[in-house]
């Protein structure tokens, strides 16, 4: 049914070139409220850029200087070329005096107040204005009849459903990949998007059915193009026919999407329910049941009439709980689908259902395994970013309990990370970390890894008060066995930070003992960091065990020998390097010898191979006790500790561990083996406009 046409007074302008003047200009315009200058300004504001496919349509608005609410105009411009397709003006030339094809623009605007009450759409306008042939002389405004295409429910277009909320974020939306569509189809899309927003937004809407991608400065809010434009503020880029790729960034816009989805999806679904249904007894109850069932499993449109009598053989089959009959599995599958279609209410319902299932019984390992697989495959652990934060965390808590068991220990944490890495290539995101923190990390590793990501500032404070002291951290590091190098690295950074922060508050003797027992972590560190990092970490550990103020002279020979030659593990080069930084030059030789000795002595060789190796190694005998120096007072806190200061050494001779950059320094970042030497930073004589990052070749 078509509604009665509505009379609309349209003002117009024809923009293009006339033969004797090559400049683009308003060739002719209506003699209404709007002047030539108004039109020039309006047309200049919304250039599409030179396009080789015409016609195209652009939509905008015009606000008269005296801003009266509702006194504005909606504008529709048709950009066309006389050489191809319909001519929208009489007596205009084809090319300019340079011999270049001319593009004309027929610009129409109609009072918003006459369009809004009847909800006239852009398509309605295009249909009416597209038929007008404009004169090349000024003339009166046009009185046209616009036929609204009737009260229609907005067509449900999955992409439009997402683009409408995107527009609400205020960021322009660029649609790519629509080269194959016609101008009508793209205009219809713009109309559909606008139909999913309050009509009033049209009063400030700007859109174009195509723009040239290198024309970067245009102000269209919704536009089609061949490539994204490289603007300072990036647009939201969506792809024609690929609604599932659209991510809606803002929470409020996601909520709007959820609302749209809850409202419009069911209406759209009705068109899919197109088996033949008959009216009859209790059609109302049966229909209601039908749509509810359909909304839970849309893949299988249910039949309205009772199903035909089943094959007896299959009936018995049904009675047995089939593989897929596990209710949790079913809800998980549905939940994934609801998350995919961003249906807030349904996901919330799913969470409650799953929690109820959890309460009602234990989950055995076989089921847990199955849920894990399902959750990994459907990407459920990263699917909730569009939910409100508390709902999102609640969703993950529930999934963790079902698939990984509580509390979440290190092996489970690694499984979670692996499943995310497989699904989306990302690490464990914040909401999921929050969920793990809430359900309780099962061990020290998980606790540190989660807290280091989630609230690094609070982490150190929380450690002291809960008994996870430095020793526990060191012992954990000594165990090694990190699933990912980065885990060990994070854990080690936290440990180093902790030791630094707590210096003076722990027993040095105890730390020395713990560290010696694990060879200053030299071997475990090899698995978690570059050589640069290892040296840095060991240097920090040495500072923790032998604070600089207590050991201004550096480490003495006994200590060096103990660390390099008699620790349970073979020393590493990094350990040697770190120690060399803490001893005077004159002591270096002793350290090399201890290193060589320790390296060979800790090798696991049979006696035969070992043979007379001893004779050929430096002799690292326990030193005779140093002659007591009565007038030399022992350093505070160092009494009785091995390595008590010997001869004071000029401070410059010790490469103070503090002189090295802190962990946050970019130089510590893992990167391909590349030596870092202080003298390698000398600059090239490149001109000043060269990018600062120009040397960075990694």
């Amino acid at each position, binding site marked *: 049914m078509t509604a009665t046409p509505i009379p609309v007074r349209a003002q117009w302008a024809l923009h293009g070139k006339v033969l004797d003047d*090559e*400049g*683009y*200009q308003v060739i002719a315009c209506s003699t209404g409220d709007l002047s030539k200058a108004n039109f*020039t*300004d309006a047309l*200049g*504001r919304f*250039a*599409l*850029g*030179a*396009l*080789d496919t015409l016609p195209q349509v652009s939509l905008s608005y015009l606000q008269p200087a005296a801003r009266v609410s509702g006194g504005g105009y909606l504008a529709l411009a048709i950009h066309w070329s006389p*050489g191809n397709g319909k001519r929208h003006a009489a007596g205009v*030339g*084809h*090319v*300019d*005096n*340079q*011999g*270049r*094809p*001319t*593009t004309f623009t027929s610009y129409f605007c109609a009072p918003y107040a006459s369009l809004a009450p009847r909800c006239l759409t852009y398509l309605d306008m295009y249909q009416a204005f597209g038929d007008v042939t404009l004169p090349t002389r000024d003339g009166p405004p046009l009185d046209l009849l616009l036929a609204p295409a009737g009260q229609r429910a907005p067509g449900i277009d999955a992409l439009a459903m997402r683009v409408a909320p995107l527009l609400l974020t205020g960021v322009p939306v660029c649609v790519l990949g629509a080269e194959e569509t016609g101008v009508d189809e793209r205009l219809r899309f713009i109309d559909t998007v606008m139909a999913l927003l309050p009509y009033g937004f049209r009063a400030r809407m700007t859109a174009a059915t195509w723009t*040239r*991608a*290198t*024309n*970067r*400065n*245009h*102000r269209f809010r919704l536009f089609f*193009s*061949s*490539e*994204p*434009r*490289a603007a300072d503020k990036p647009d939201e880029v969506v792809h024609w026919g690929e609604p599932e790729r659209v991510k809606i960034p803002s929470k409020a816009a996601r909520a709007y999407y959820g609302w749209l989805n809850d409202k419009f999806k069911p209406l759209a679904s009705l068109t899919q329910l197109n088996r033949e249904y008959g009216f009859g007894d209790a059609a109302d109850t049966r229909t209601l049941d039908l749509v509810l069932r359909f909304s839970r499993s849309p893949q299988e449109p249910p039949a309205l009439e009772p199903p035909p009598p089943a094959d007896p053989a299959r009936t018995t089959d049904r009675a047995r709980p089939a593989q897929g009959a596990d209710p949790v599995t079913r809800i998980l599958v549905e939940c994934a689908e609801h998350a995919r279609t961003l249906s807030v209410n349904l996901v919330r319902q799913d969470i409650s259902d799953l929690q109820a299932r959890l309460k009602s019984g234990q989950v055995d390992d076989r089921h847990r395994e199955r849920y894990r697989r399902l959750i990994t495959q459907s990407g459920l652990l990263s699917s909730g970013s569009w939910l409100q934060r508390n709902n999102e965390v609640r969703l993950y808590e529930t999934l963790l309990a079902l698939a990984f068991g509580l509390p979440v220990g290190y092996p489970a944490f690694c499984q979670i990370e692996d499943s995310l890495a497989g699904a989306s290539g990302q690490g464990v995101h914040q909401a999921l970390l929050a969920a793990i923190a809430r359900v309780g990390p099962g061990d020290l590793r998980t606790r540190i890894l989660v807290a280091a990501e989630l609230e690094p500032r609070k982490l150190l404070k929380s450690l002291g008060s809960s008994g996870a002291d430095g020793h526990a951290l060191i012992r954990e590091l000594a165990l090694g066995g990190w699933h990912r190098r980065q885990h060990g690295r994070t854990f080690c950074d936290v440990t180093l930070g902790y030791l630094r922060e707590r210096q003076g508050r722990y027993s040095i003797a105890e730390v020395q003992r713990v560290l010696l027992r694990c060879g200053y972590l030299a071997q475990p560190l090899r698995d978690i960091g570059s050589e640069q990092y290892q040296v840095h970490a060991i240097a920090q550990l040495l500072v923790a065990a032998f604070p600089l103020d207590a050991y201004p002279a550096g480490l003495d020979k006994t200590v060096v020998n103990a660390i390099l030659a008699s620790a349970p593990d073979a020393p590493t080069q990094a350990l040697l390097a770190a120690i060399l930084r803490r001893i005077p030059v004159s002591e270096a030789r002793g350290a090399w010898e201890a290193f060589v000795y320790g390296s060979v002595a800790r090798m696991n060789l049979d006696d035969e191979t070992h043979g007379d190796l001893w004779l050929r190694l430096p002799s690292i005998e326990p030193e005779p006790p140093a002659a007591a120096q009565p007038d030399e007072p022992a350093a505070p806190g160092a009494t009785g500790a091995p390595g008590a200061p010997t001869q004071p050494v000029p401070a410059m001779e010790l490469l103070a561990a503090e002189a090295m950059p802190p962990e946050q320094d970019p130089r510590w970042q893992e990167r*391909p*083996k*590349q*030596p870092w*030497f202080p*003298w*390698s*930073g*000398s600059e*090239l004589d*490149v*001109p*000043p*406009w*060269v*990018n600062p990052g*120009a*040397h*960075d*070749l990694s």
Partner: protein
Amino acid sequence: MATTGMGSAKAGVPDDGKRTYRSEPGIAMLGATGAGKTTFLGALQIALLQDERGWTIWSKDPASRREMIKMNTALTSEGEFPLPSTGIDTFDWILGSRRERTERTGRLRSRSFEESVQVTLKLTDASGELARSDQMDLDDRRQLVEQVAGSQGILYMFDPIREFNRGDAYDKLFGLLMDIIATEAEHPGFDGRLGHHVAVCVTKFDEPRIYKTAESLRMLVWDSHDAAGFPRVHDSDARDLMHRLCRLSRSGTGQAVPQLLERYFYPDRIKYFVTSSVGFMVSERTQRFDPQDTENVYRIESGEALIRGPVNPINVVEPVLWLVEQMALNG
């Protein structure tokens, strides 16, 4: 990669001895509508290809890349000129080349390596119409002024034929310069002159009227290595030729264009070139340049201008590389 040999490699020099440095100067194109700005850009790719210095051009920005390919194919394969520009097009193109370079690596040692040079050009090509006085209040005009003010180089396209027919180069340039200066004047230390490097290109050299003028002034020179025998006007004569051509300006103000430029920019930062984006027509019979039939453009019945033969750009690479070099030297 070996990590021994303390300090044998400088930071940023990988072991293959190659190094890259990049830069990002902006170059804005100015000139009246129809002066040949967009055509010049479209011809840059082919001009680089024909140039012996081995520069390459590419782009990381998909939009700039697509337009480069489109413009290039239109010119070379379809023989079509670009459409009149509307609004402001911005292209991010990267010019790349390699050069030999030697540097000290220690007190006594030095080494040579091949250095790859990359210059990202942000090229602004606006419709020449934005220079019109009635466009002054338009948004696009304001944006153009800002972009020009923010660039380091300007390619000013001067079309002598248009000057002959309309003579409006001076007015338009003056109006635009005033706007640019007004923007720049807000910066502390502004001394009344603009710091841009300006390559002034006298366009459409293949057009018979321009060619004949240069010929009658005995400004033509020939490169003996050039197989097709194309003439050129040496850069040192370019300003003179422009001056002479401007004498024929319809309004008589054309002659003042060089003075205008030299007053508002530093004269030592301006260089003149005589260019043709499509180059001279090559005689099909002799495969050589024919002084009696130079123009490489013809019009079909509808009035549309098309390119007659192969495109052999004259002085298209030079102004761009000159600007790049100046900007590199002076920042």
